[in-house]
């Protein structure tokens, strides 16, 4: 299994954890901890009842962005290994939209890498969420993606290490 992926298939946290652990061992780093983050489709948004979500991605660019996030975590936490899987297409309430796993020798780095990676996904991954409500629909729009924005990167780092 690839560590980085955009997929229309349901996400498997177990499979991602296994892939990250195997990659960490193959690199010869001690693996004493794996932290995971799973983003899940919420039933409501600002009080409106959500019926489903559709995620759209610019696949070719998103895979490069995930590689960039992997490089950034590798620079800051050289002993850690990260995996990022993002789902696209229509998702029902309760389904996983994103799964991140970080393996490291100790829990502190594992948690930090996991948090940093999800912050960066939200900042720069070319993925868009279209929410469908009982009474309408809306595109969700967050950050204007700019991978070279050092302030954004510093914010992700600060949140990871808080």
């Amino acid at each position, binding site marked *: 299994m690839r560590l980085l992926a955009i997929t229309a298939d349901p996400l498997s946290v177990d499979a991602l954890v296994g892939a990250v652990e195997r990659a960490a061992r193959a690199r010869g780093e001690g693996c004493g901890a794996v932290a995971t983050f799973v983003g899940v489709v919420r039933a409501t948004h600002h009080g409106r009842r959500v019926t489903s979500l559709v995620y*759209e991605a610019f696949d070719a*660019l998103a895979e490069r962005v995930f590689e960039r996030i992997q490089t950034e975590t590798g620079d800051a936490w050289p002993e850690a290994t990260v995996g990022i899987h993002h789902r696209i297409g229509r998702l029902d309430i309760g389904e996983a939209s994103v799964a991140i796993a970080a393996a490291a020798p100790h829990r502190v780095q594992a948690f930090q890498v996991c948090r940093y990676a999800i912050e960066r*996904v*939200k900042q720069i991954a*070319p993925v868009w969420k279209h929410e469908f409500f009982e009474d309408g629909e809306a*595109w969700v*729009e*967050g950050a*204007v*993606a700019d991978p070279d924005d050092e302030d954004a990167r510093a914010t992700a780092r600060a949140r990871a290490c808080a």
Partner: protein
Amino acid sequence: MRVKVRVFARLRELAGRGDWDDDVDDQGGHASAATVWLAAVRRHPALEPFGGAISCAVNARFARMTTTVHDGDEVAFLPPVSGG
């Protein structure tokens, strides 16, 4: 020169399509992603209000609106992202 233009999410809906080919003046080799955006807005005026809050990519790599564009390039315009 001929470029392939791609737009996503809200921009795709506003344009009514996700990609098209466009003939853009190469401005003596100085045409940029911004040149392609202006051509896209002429073709799909509904895109115009979003010019201040987009990212762009040339050949599936993040770029600046000032990045030079060449014949055959794919130029993508991205609204604010909301993955995760």
